């Protein structure tokens, strides 16, 4: 039975290897195009070879490409390879790029159930919560595009107001123009905020199995609490090799910078 399985698996691997060789762009060049790497990684994932899938997705991600879907797939591969902190890290990165994606949220929630620490988040002021909820409906680029489109229409309608002779047309042009202009400004604000969140890297994931958080940057600080891998923390400050973090429940402390990876 065991031997049979082994043979079958070896057979399968050979088939996959064959398929991989047959994929376009593989035979001639050593450096593969990111698309073919992703296709191969997907194939690895589909056949349960998660470590290999991780390797290829990482190759694409590390060569400077980014995409919510790529990070999502990478997170999935990490999850299946039982590397929960990395899975959470990439799910979080994917969520930053596309905050509204339901699959990313679902998998992130599921991965978070494997995290040891349970931190009760401080309740947000309801306006802030609404604002964040609204902000999360679209990725940063989505807001930017919306802002551009509405600005275009605002210009169009205001032009109508200026050009038109008939009083009614002018009135309609003015009202719609002003509304779209206001919307454009709002979307511009959202785009700006999203972009700020995206580039500020103020959140991080704990990558070491257990980290003692100290009261001051340095080994001689008092031990405050212990957090475990996979937990999300907010980065406040850093000094030499130490980073000050804040948990979602508001507790603060310093930990060695290498213990966390910024999202």
């Amino acid at each position: 039975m065991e031997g049979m399985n082994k043979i079958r698996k070896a057979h399968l691997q050979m088939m996959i290897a064959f398929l991989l060789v047959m994929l376009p762009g593989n035979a001639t060049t050593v450096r593969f195009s990111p698309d073919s790497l992703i296709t191969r990684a997907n194939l690895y994932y589909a056949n349960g070879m998660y470590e290999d899938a991780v390797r290829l997705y990482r190759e694409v991600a590390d060569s400077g490409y980014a995409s919510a879907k790529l990070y999502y797939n990478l997170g999935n591969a990490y999850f299946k390879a039982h590397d929960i902190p990395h899975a959470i890290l990439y799910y979080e990165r994917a969520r930053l790029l596309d905050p509204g994606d339901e699959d990313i949220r679902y998998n992130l929630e599921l991965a978070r159930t494997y995290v040891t620490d349970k931190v009760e988040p401080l309740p947000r002021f309801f306006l802030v919560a609404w604002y964040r909820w609204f902000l999360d409906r679209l990725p940063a680029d989505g807001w930017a595009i919306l802002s551009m489109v509405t600005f275009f229409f605002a210009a169009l309608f205001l032009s109508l107001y200026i050009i038109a002779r008939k009083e009614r047309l002018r009135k309609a042009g003015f009202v719609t123009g002003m509304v779209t202009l206001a919307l454009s400004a709002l979307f511009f604000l959202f785009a700006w905020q999203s972009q700020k969140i995206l580039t500020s890297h103020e959140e991080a994931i704990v990558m070491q199995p257990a980290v003692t958080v100290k009261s001051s940057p340095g080994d001689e600080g008092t031990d405050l609490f212990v957090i475990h891998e996979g937990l999300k923390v907010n980065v406040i400050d850093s000094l030499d090799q130490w980073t000050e973090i804040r948990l979602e429940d508001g507790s603060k402390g310093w930990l060695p910078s290498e213990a966390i990876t910024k999202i």
Partner: protein
Amino acid sequence: MGDCKKTYLLWFFLGFFFPAGALTAQEVTIKASAPKVVSLNQQFRLVYEINTRGGKFIPPELKDFEVLMGPSTSYSESTQIINGRISRHVSYTYTYLLQPTKTGDFTIPPARLQLKGKVYESGPVKITVVQGNNTQQATGSTGKSTAGSASSNLYVRMIVDKNEVYLGEPVVVTVKIFSRVSLTGFEEVDMPEFNGFLKQEIPTPNLTSLQREYIDGVAYNTGVIQRYLLFPQTTGELKVDPVKIVCLVRKRVHASPGGFFDDFFDTYQTVRQPIFSNRLKIRVKPLPSGAPEGFRGAVGTFGLDASVDKTTLRVNDAVTLKVRISGNGNLKLVEAPSIDFPPDFETYDPKVVTHIKNTVHGATGYKQFEYLMIPRHAGKYRIPPVTFSYFDPVQKSYKTLRTPAFTLQVRKGEEESGTQVVVSGDKEQVKYLGKDIRYIYTRPMRLKKEGYTLFGTLFFRLFFLVIFFLFVLVVLISRHRRRMLGDQRRVRNRKANKVARKRLKKAGSYLKTNDKAGFYEEVLRAMWGYLSDKMLLPLSDLTRESAAAALESQGISKDLIERLLRVIDQCEFARYAPEGESGAMDKLYKEAVEVISELEEKL
């Protein structure tokens, strides 16, 4: 123990009567005695005899021998009074029952006695252990030296069928007695604790008569006292302590040496003789690695059988799944196999029927698990195959047995439709059987450079700038056009009077030539043209009403508008009238000039 107490008491009394000083004069000696040569499997006694009481006996180190029993102490004392001289003989004995563990020459170091600050020593004891003429494993019995010691004439053995077993593989232990003396019975049978084993007794008939058996040509009466099945529960070398049996042996006692009746009337005396068996050492090997999933320690040879009592049933009817594991092995420890029942089923803990017979070939029989299930909803259900894994110690491999899967057809109950209405609010949530992450995104994805956001890019900024400039352009063009348009109007406004007067002059010339149609035509054109230029309305849009409304909005009095309209009406009317007088034409001309002059003043 009771004996000991008694002797102490006696000693106390004696000590009371006889001054102790008389006794201590005697020299303290420790005498060790043991056979010089023993065979490997022979039990022997090591006796230390001390001729005084008290003191602390320090036993020797007995590392080369196995101590089966001891030290047991006994005390004897004799007092003689001969011619008034009292001589007393006291003896304390410490007795060990030993068994050699290996052949060779051994020296037992001296035993010591600490008494009143002095230490007395026995001499060392030299013992030669020789190979016995038989080993116990070979035949399950022990060769004995035929020396007249009681233990070779009467001994008990624990015989095992194997010395090396796998964890959970049963060992058959037979406790057997070998006797060459006349044995009348057992007073006490002390079975050892079988530590590390699960002990199962094999039913053994009561020992009523002994069988005759020859061992090395010597006839023994033998009998099996008890048989056990031992299932080892831990790995490693497990030791079993000896069995102790107190036998009642009938011995012939010569009443008095050289007595007259000796030859005819022997008297018999029943003697209690404790005997000890060998120790057992059983090596228990751990099960090899690679146990299949679901292996729970069953060792032996087994069969698996499963059945359901019906395959089609109604909702809320009970159905029983019977799983029977039969065979030979540690059946008693076999656990109920776990079965993945359909989640909609109500299930209960299985009812277990055990039928196991312990024999010398191991424990055989079966264990039957009856699972009662009640389906609560109609449908087609599958009960997955039941699997059972065990280790076969003969083939030294793991085996997995599997029953077929069962399919149950559950139909709706008859009364269910009636009750359904009542409990319609009792809807069930979808039951989630497992949780997993969602699958990867497999369609081609758009990759961007890391850290790229549309916001803040040159394109983004340029877009806004361009749109803004376009808008500004629109505003500028529009303003320019409006200014141009405004100039045109001013010009038209300024010229309106001139044009009107020109036309009226022309009308005046028609009046002189008495060209009626030409006159009215020209007056009308003068009026409309003037209005069009002044009101900035195209001629096509001008009607009596629109002109009146426009004039009114410019603050022209109703009276003047009325006069203007009358002029226009008269012209329109006269144009198509067949005849008219020149006096009317004259009057109209004057009126038109007056109206235009007045309008010019006000506009």
